[in-house]
């Protein structure tokens, strides 16, 4: 585990510097400890599906299989073991450590009240077979997996991006993708709407949300100093009092007079 560092100077120094922090593992137990799960695992093994690894973690069974067996396994679990729901499906980026993705399928059985997870490992340039014919929920999950990680899915009815725009470049959930976007991302809206020539006029993104420039009347206006947008700012200008109407009132509009107002104390009146 990571050594403890005092956090009382967080204002001075950010402590979120460890980008690849590896979380400590939750304890695993053997599948034979649980009767229901050992029966499910037996059924998988009986169907001649090669099980690479299996254990129970946080009351859920995790089974590693080969990627080519995925459709067969999920069909078996759905039809014979009562795992009727595929609640989640996505990938985990292990490219730098192991050169590929771990794809997981989270299954739920309402009748057995159990959850299990099927996992398989694919190389970076490999693709995986779609399970959307078995589970309708897999349709969008597989599209999301493609969108976020670039994992291609074979025999999918509509293999397109789902969250990012169609003309997006890169896959944002990869560990190598910067959180604040690469160059393409940071200029995306400018390039698309105004064209590349407009980059100089509009300028780069300002990501410092605490930035205030009192002389910049294009982007900033301050109460009591209402100047029109883009007008040259005069620092000696007299400060105007805060008011929502002009001093001499507004034509045909009656201003609010506190003396004429009434405060209702009885709410049920």
């Amino acid at each position: 585990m990571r050594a403890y560092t005092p956090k009382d100077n967080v204002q001075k120094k950010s402590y979120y510097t460890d980008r690849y922090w590896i979380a400590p593992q939750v304890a695993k137990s053997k599948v034979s400890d649980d009767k229901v799960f050992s029966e499910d695992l037996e059924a998988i093994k009986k169907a001649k599906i090669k099980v690479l690894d299996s254990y129970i973690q946080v009351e859920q069974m995790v089974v590693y299989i080969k990627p080519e067996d995925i459709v067969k396994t999920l069909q078996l679990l759905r039809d014979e073991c009562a795992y009727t729901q595929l609640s989640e499906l996505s990938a985990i980026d292990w490219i730098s450590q192991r050169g590929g993705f771990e794809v997981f399928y989270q299954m739920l059985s309402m009748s057995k009240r159990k959850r299990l997870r099927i996992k398989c490992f694919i190389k970076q340039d490999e693709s995986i077979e779609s399970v959307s014919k078995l589970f309708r929920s897999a349709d969008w999950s597989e599209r999301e997996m493609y969108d976020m990680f670039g994992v291609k899915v074979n025999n999918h009815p509509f293999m397109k991006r789902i969250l990012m725009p169609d003309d997006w470049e890169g896959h944002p959930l990869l560990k190598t993708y910067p959180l604040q976007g690469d160059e393409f991302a940071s200029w995306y809206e400018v390039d698309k709407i105004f064209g590349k020539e407009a980059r100089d006029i509009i300028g780069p993104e300002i990501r410092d949300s605490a930035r205030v420039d009192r002389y910049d009347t294009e982007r900033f206006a301050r109460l009591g100093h209402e100047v029109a947008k883009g007008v040259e700012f005069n620092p000696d200008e007299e400060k105007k009092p805060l008011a929502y109407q002009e001093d001499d009132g507004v034509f045909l509009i009656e201003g609010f007079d506190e003396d004429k107002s009434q405060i209702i104390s009885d709410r049920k009146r």
Partner: protein
Amino acid sequence: MAQHQVNYMQDGGLPVALTSIDKLVNWGRSNSLWALTYGLACCGIEMMASGASRYDFDRFGTIFRASPRQADIMIVAGTLTKKHAEFIKRLYDQMTEPKWVISMGSCANTGGMFNTYATVQGVDRVIPVDLYLPGCAPRPESLQYAVMLLQKKIRSQKAIKTQKPKRLM
């Protein structure tokens, strides 16, 4: 005839009020600011609350319209994603002149806490903004105050002038 003479300038004469055309037009414009419903995220909920009966936006003449053709102001309430940026530009272009934009909340002003690849870092990168309203989310009172300030701004403008088309470029 003298006994029937009407003093138009006095009370009880014909109902005449003298004003300049500017003031009259701006009075009309500033008190019927129809807003385009543009709730993009959580700030949109506060914008809806301002429109509902408790805060009652209608008394300002601000009525929400679901069509850009009928709207005078666009209250950008919420997080503008990069995917949506081209549509906000298109809707802004479809609004008829004169038009104004209020950028409501930190997300619309600067991208707010979403300092990420998918969020436009301030709507003013795409459309010109007249008034920035800080807060996350701003309360309905502050949105109404923002509209009042915008009314004040409209009243200080010349009504009859060739409206400079408000393009970023």
